[in-house]
């Protein structure tokens, strides 16, 4: 028991002797020491009635008693708070049993109304591996000292745990710093809010709302691409929060430099902080992930099955969870642990065949990535930007899809195979010299899923 608890317990014992029992039971029994900030002693009370009454009726008495224990206390704050913080919501089935009826299949909403954070995301269930280590440590650094990397920009493709990481960070900060105003929103919610504010003529309220936060977390900001007015709003919001040294966390599926239709001024601002990526988990991380998720949800699963799944499924954490779900249902159905054969049969439909993309599909994706018209790639044009993209495409086709040089040449506007070889070598050279190109290729690899 810490000191403030002890002090408060002692004071309660004294008060109990001084006032009538019903009075004590009604007003003091459910109070508890919450915190001490400087000279302010904070008392948790169960409701507003209680707060009001302690304040108007017992304030002097409590203060006098507190000062006997600690002379530094000069005022008291009463805060309405539930005492047992870790209250598990009772399952809906309980009532169902009595009534013999079936219940509506609710899912408990665990989104906190004030912060928008979903309480189910925490670091307890977060698996750290080489694929997300850097992002994880950046988040931890921010938890220790909000504002240290501002903004923190986390990117990575879908289903790799970006949302989990940033929400868990928000939840942890909410827990550690009670006074910080925290807000989590998706870019879509933000734009909806903005449109509503425009419609209701309450744009000032909108601005004030977002500008009042100490920690703003915005998910999936790639959706801002091409929305100029929204980007402007975000730009101003960003500047204000940044100037006030408020922590901002963004997530996106791409590096800011590759979000098409993102204004340069925003891009440069994002680069001012820390940009980290989350890549696909490797075998060890996949196996750790599977084990953690299975034990959390109490899904019986054998070691060899975990091993099989980890080596046969790649990447996406959401897919791994999906497979665990079907294993769970099958286990319940069969009333026994699944063998590796059962699992193989189960997931045969779930394993995505290795991607065989058509060459023109790849050309389209890459040229879109560089914002170049696809037709130009096939053209004879010698414009520098187009040539560069064309060379990258040739490199990718050769390196990752094993297409032969002559075929590549034929597919891309009937070029000679020596041109292709030359291009391939050129890109290799570029990559040695310019780390930016390596990063671009990595990005493309992620997009093309190779």
């Amino acid at each position, binding site marked *: 028991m810490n000191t403030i608890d002890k002090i408060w317990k002692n004071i309660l014992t004294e008060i109990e002797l001084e006032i009538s029992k019903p009075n004590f039971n*009604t007003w003091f029994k459910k109070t508890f020491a919450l915190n001490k900030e400087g000279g302010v002693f904070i008392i948790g009370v169960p409701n507003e009635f209680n707060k009001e009454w302690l304040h108007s009726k017992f304030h002097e008495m409590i203060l006098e008693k507190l000062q006997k224990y600690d002379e530094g206390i000069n005022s008291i704050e009463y805060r309405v708070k539930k005492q047992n913080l870790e209250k598990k919501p009772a399952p809906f089935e309980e009532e*169902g049993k009595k009534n013999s009826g*079936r219940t509506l299949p609710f899912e408990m909403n665990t989104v906190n109304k004030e912060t928008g954070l979903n309480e189910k995301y925490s670091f307890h269930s977060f698996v750290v591996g080489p694929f997300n280590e850097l992002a994880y440590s950046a988040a931890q650094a921010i938890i220790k000292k909000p504002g240290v990397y501002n903004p923190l920009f986390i990117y990575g493709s879908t289903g790799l745990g970006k949302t989990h990481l940033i929400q868990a960070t928000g939840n942890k900060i909410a827990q550690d710093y009670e006074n910080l105003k925290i807000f989590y929103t998706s870019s879509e919610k933000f734009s909806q809010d903005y449109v509503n504010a425009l419609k209701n003529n309450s744009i000032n309220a909108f601005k004030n709302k977002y500008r009042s936060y100490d920690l703003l977390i915005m998910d999936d900001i790639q959706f801002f691409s091409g929305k100029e007015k929204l980007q402007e709003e975000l730009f101003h919001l960003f500047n204000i929060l940044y100037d006030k040294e408020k922590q901002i966390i963004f997530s996106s599926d791409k590096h800011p430099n590759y979000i098409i239709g993102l204004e340069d001024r925003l891009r440069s601002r994002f680069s001012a902080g820390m940009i980290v990526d989350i890549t696909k988990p490797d075998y060890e991380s996949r196996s750790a992930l599977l084990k953690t998720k299975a034990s959390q949800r109490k899904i019986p699963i054998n070691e060899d099955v975990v091993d099989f799944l980890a080596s046969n499924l790649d990447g996406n954490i959401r897919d791994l969870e999906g497979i665990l779900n079907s294993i769970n249902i099958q286990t319940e159905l069969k009333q026994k642990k699944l063998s590796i054969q059962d699992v193989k049969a189960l997931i045969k439909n779930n394993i995505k065949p290795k991607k065989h993309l058509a060459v023109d599909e790849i050309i389209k994706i890459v040229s879109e990535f560089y914002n170049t018209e696809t037709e130009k790639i096939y053209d004879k044009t010698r414009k520098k930007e187009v040539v560069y993209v064309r060379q990258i495409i040739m490199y990718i086709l050769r390196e990752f899809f094993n297409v032969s040089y002559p075929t590549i040449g034929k597919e891309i506007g009937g070029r000679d195979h020596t041109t292709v070889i030359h291009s391939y070598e050129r890109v290799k050279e570029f990559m040695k010299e310019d780390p930016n190109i390596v990063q671009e290729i990595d990005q493309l690899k992620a997009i093309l899923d190779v």
Partner: protein
Amino acid sequence: MKIEAHLEKIKDAISRIQKVSAKNISLPILENVLITSGNNTLVLRTTNLHVGVEITVPVKVIEKGEALVKLEVFNAIINNLGNEEVVIFEVIDNILKITTEKSEMSINLFPVDDFPTLPKKENEVEIKLPLPLFLDGIRSVIYAASTSDIKPEISSVYIYSDNNEVIFVSTDSFRLAEKRVVFEGNADFPGIIIPVKNINEFVKIFSGIDEEVSVFIGKNQFFVQSENIFFTSRLIDGNYPDYKQIIPKESKTEFVLLKEELVQSLRLVNIFSDSFNQILIKTKNKDGKVEIFSRNTDVGENETAIDAAIKGDDIDVYLNHKYLTDVFPVIGSDSMSFSFLDKNKAAVVRSVGDPSFLYLIMPMNR
């Protein structure tokens, strides 16, 4: 304190607040009503520490002051003064003297200092709502709220805003009622969960009043201010279940029938239903009829057919007829529509032509 008041006005005020101060063993002081006279007004305050209310009544004040009286006694006196018109209240030491044309009585007072004050408004979100619409929203859903204390979150009415609509929701996890009410002007506020007991008090206190009220929404408390009444209730600190995802988006069977015919037949069905209130509903698409069966091993059994416009596959589904009876008063039109996706999925009940109201019932297991 000495005041002169119209009996009718005092009577009206007392009848609104009398249920608030229930018997309270741990803190008997809460069984009282605090009466305070200011300039030309008398304020009556009661609270049970869940809700608090203050009603202002215009009176003629001869001398200012305050008094704490037992509400039950005060109520009994006021109600039995018959046809008197004017009543005079006067505090002399710790006695309240009540004088009318015919009677004169004096009742004992309690020390005023021990009576709780009400929570004060701080920096709440303020919205203005017409009371009749507000009350209508609550009445449309409140019967579906859970009465058990196991899950306080759903022993409640959940109120939230969506653009210019205010949405009222209640559920006991077997059925769910949702009413959307359109309000003019800005109604943008964070969702609140109000305990069903408290909102029942709210309905009683404000019933029959037709004016616009200011609603103040705080973190733990909400406040309503009308011209003469101030009301405050504690809010439930929790999350309401994410109910929208369980509303079925499609259906395989749909039928529409006359509400009056269903009401009639359910009266009959009621006699034969078992202790689980279970009835079987069978659709007969080719006959254009819905058949209702109920059986009770002690009484016997019953079968009633109702004309219905049926679309889609025939379905057999078991329902709790009490859940249907509950919803009749809020079905405004003369016909009701039912739609089902599957006999194990929630059924959707609506009032035909009124998209603002939605009722879900979970079928029973056999």
